[in-house]
């Protein structure tokens, strides 16, 4: 796409926004309903696209993308009117008669960049929020998932208001051209490297941004006495490593921390679970492309890393398949332990005491999520109070993503800005403070000339000292 074309798209969307139509409840509802229809009617199309881009099984596609979107759009439709309603705020009696309220309004024209691993989910989830908040939108899906990108480019204009919600396809050059335009908000999901470029471009226009990044999300695995609990816990860990998109997921388990005496139990259970889940590997997504395949292969090429592989390790560059791989105590200075893995390799790091996991995590950049499997209340409190992460989930994985009442986003290295549920609505809104007064009740001591006698009045006002104020007004108290 040429610069002039990109500019044309931006102008069209801006004109659509300025017409005012995206602001009405009716428009927002109609768009969300249209999205509902798209999600039901185009299910097959989505499954096909995701299968093509990532080899995703349709159950995975439903569980992680389509189903989540249906839930989110239903939730938005249910709550839209409530979210749009201004809310009253208290005003001191002194200011009577005054009415204060918070009025949400759309920011205007929003630019959304989505990533390739959940190309439909991560495109439409922010879109839901932006529409609910009354904005016009340009969506730029990732070119690394071309089938999904094409799917969106075809179906979004078919169901939604194509003047106000546009999909722009292309690579980094198109992204760059889009960034040259002026937006009222930019929402970015992806890597830190590109996020820096986005934020720097946004700074030129003072455009607020939200960046959803990643990091190395750890799972702390405490000793669990019940075998059943251990089985469930390990299934959940596997369910956050290989099950979603072969580990190419920002809220996946990047590595596990366990006490060295329990490592054998954990490893055995992991192997058993992998066997149970993957009698064949046809349910496993593949690696997105050769570049990432190479990246992942390189992580385990290093002999000191390869030596720690205790399960899996086979690679097939033809099919871009990497077998679920477990490593036990790879060197902490290896790239594997310093970069977000984003693939089907699971390092297990052993510690003398499980409490050491807190220090281990704190020494590293704040992750998007920390998972902790434990029944120990003290450990739970310590983890909650002493670590920082976007989210913290005890005894399960991934599922926090499906909670509409919990904000989803990072902190520090894992990003900033939160969405999901009402947080999506707020993220794409400006909350305008409105104070309404009347002409009654003037306090003349507010005004110049500020003679000495006025100051004591103002002191009473500012201390909300109504009694003294009354006495002063009645002339019964001076100085």
């Amino acid at each position, binding site marked *: 796409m040429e610069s002039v074309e990109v500019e044309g798209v931006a102008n069209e969307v801006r004109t659509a926004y300025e017409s005012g139509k995206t602001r009405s409840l009716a428009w927002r509802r109609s768009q969300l309903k249209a999205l509902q229809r798209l999600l039901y009617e185009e299910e097959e199309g989505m499954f096909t696209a995701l299968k093509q881009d990532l080899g995703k099984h349709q159950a995975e596609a439903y569980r992680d993308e389509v189903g989540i979107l249906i839930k989110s759009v239903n939730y938005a439709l249910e709550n839209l009117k409530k979210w749009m309603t201004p809310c009253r705020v208290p005003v001191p009696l002194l*200011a009577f008669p005054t009415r*204060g309220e918070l009025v949400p309004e759309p920011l205007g024209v929003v630019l959304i960049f989505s990533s390739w691993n959940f190309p439909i989910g991560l495109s439409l989830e922010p879109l839901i929020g932006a529409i609910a908040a009354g904005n016009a939108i340009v969506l730029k899906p990732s070119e690394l998932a071309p089938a999904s990108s094409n799917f969106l480019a075809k179906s979004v204009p078919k169901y939604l208001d194509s003047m106000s919600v546009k999909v722009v396809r292309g690579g980094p050059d198109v992204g760059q051209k889009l960034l040259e335009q002026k937006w009222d908000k930019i929402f970015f999901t992806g890597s830190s490297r590109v996020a820096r470029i986005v934020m*720097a471009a946004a700074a030129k226009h003072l455009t607020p941004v939200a960046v959803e990044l990643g990091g190395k999300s750890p799972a702390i695995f405490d000793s669990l006495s019940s075998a059943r609990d251990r089985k469930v816990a390990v299934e959940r860990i596997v369910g956050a490593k290989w099950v979603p998109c072969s580990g190419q997921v920002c809220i996946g388990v990047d590595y596990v921390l366990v006490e060295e005496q329990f490592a054998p139990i954990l490893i055995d259970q992991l192997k058993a679970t992998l066997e149970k889940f993957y009698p064949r590997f046809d349910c496993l997504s593949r690696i997105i492309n050769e570049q990432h395949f190479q990246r992942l292969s390189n992580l385990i090429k290093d002999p000191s890393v390869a030596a720690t592989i205790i399960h899996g390790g086979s690679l097939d560059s033809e099919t871009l398949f990497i077998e679920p791989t477990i490593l036990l105590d790879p060197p902490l200075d290896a790239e594997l332990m310093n970069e977000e893995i984003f693939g089907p390799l699971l390092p297990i790091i052993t510690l003398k005491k499980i409490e050491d996991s807190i220090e281990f995590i704190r020494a590293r950049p704040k992750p998007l999520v920390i998972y902790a499997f434990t029944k120990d209340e003290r450990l739970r409190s310590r983890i909650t109070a002493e670590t920082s992460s976007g*989210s913290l989930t*005890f005894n399960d994985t991934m599922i*926090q993503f*499906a909670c509409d009442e919990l904000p989803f986003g990072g902190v520090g290295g894992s990003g900033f800005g939160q969405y999901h549920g009402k947080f999506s609505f707020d993220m794409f809104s400006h909350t305008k403070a409105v*104070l309404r007064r009347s*002409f009654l009740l003037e306090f003349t001591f507010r005004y110049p*000339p500020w003679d000495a006698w006025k100051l004591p009045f103002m002191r009473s006002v500012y201390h909300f000292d109504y009694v003294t104020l009354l006495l002063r007004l009645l002339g019964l108290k001076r100085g």
Partner: protein
Amino acid sequence: MENPAEEEAVGEGFDGARAAVLVAGLRRGFASGRTRSYEWRAAQLKGIVRMIDDKEAEIMAALHDDLAKPHMESYLHEISLAKAACTFALKEMKRWMKPEKVPTSITTFPSSAEIVSEPVGVVLVISAWNYPFLLSIDPVIGAIAAGNAVALKPSEVAPATSSLFATILPKYTDNSCVKVVEGSIPETTALLEQKWDKIFYTGNGKVGRIVMTAAAKHLTPVALELGGKCPVLVDSNVNVKVATKRIAVGKWGCNNGQACVAPDYILTTKSFAPTLVDAMKKTLEKFYGKDPLESPDLSRIVNAKHFRRLTSLLDDERVSGTIVYGGQQDEKHLKIAPTLLLDVPHDSLIMKEEIFGPLLPIITFNEVEDCLDFINSKAKPLAAYLFTKDKRLEERFVKTVSAGGMLINDTALHLANPHLPFGGVGESGIGAYHGKFSFDSFSHKKAVLSRGFGGEAPARYPPYTPQKQKILRGLINGSIIALLLAILGWPRG
């Protein structure tokens, strides 16, 4: 225990290396965990309250030095608001610090969820010169209430207040976690090169862009409190005496127009303009007398650079020709009198940039409708004001004009209400603060979900049989039956 090397970090020759040492010290202070306790936060806030009480005279003197600010203004707009922010935070902080329980849905049953507020870590506050005391201490209060370590860089354009902070703040707060850095562009640049967990900047759009660009290198979230041209739309059906008083006190009673929320220009109908101008003249004479340059109730212009900037706005003959009141200047004392201009050309510089001074253009249109269009043709301001008794116009104004905040029938007051978020939108800024919004601005809201080991759903995992997929659909969409089947461990092995 203070590291002696850190003492050097503040002051002369503050460069990148020293900035790094400063930040490292704050990180150590934060990592020690001491800023997290309620006791620490309350102690700092109480210290600030004591500081304001003990040093009220010094603060007023510094403000007078920097801006010739009348004592009443210093008291009303800086000292009281700063103290109120502290006492409000002290009163509410325990509640703000408590985790917020949130409901969970069938999808995650059984589970419990809460949102836990935690400090972001080490924050940088860069303040402005026009309310140099308030705009420095207010964000610092928020940062402390949220449990952060903080570095404050007051504006060098208000040097007396800046050096007062450098002297007194360390005496009343915990030095290892609250620091003041004085300086100008080189020092600010050195600070901006460091990695912070949040940067809070108050000032203009040009520097706001520089701050955000620097923050982008570290992906540091920012709050930018900027400005803009705050319009006042005056309808004809108003109590014009009260209206002009409220406009005047919001304009010239706020640092002689050098305030981000001061009315920048007035819009009204051609037919009402004469009445409005007349009433405004009477009000101004009542407030400031026949010789406003002599009035002790007007701040001076902050420095020669801004004085020249303002007077040059009047250089354009098309503009100076429209002066209907005021216009007196005293370059030696950096004083400019309240000046009214009627119908300056829309393309003149005075109508393009934020005035930030005592010049008030009045623009007239035939219809009120045209006034609204005019406002919406300009960048979104920090505040927009409307004077009217017409409820329908009021509703239209609130619905169609976008601004950081809005007041109907008054000006500037909204920043004194801690229940209202104070901040801009578009060119007027990013983020908001005051009251709980300050606390939130410097916090990370961590989502914490707790589950047990019961209620396992094999349907989540491969191999993906058709029965599993059915249950999964039900589960995600909150179906009770799906939940029951899942709880019963369906489908089995």
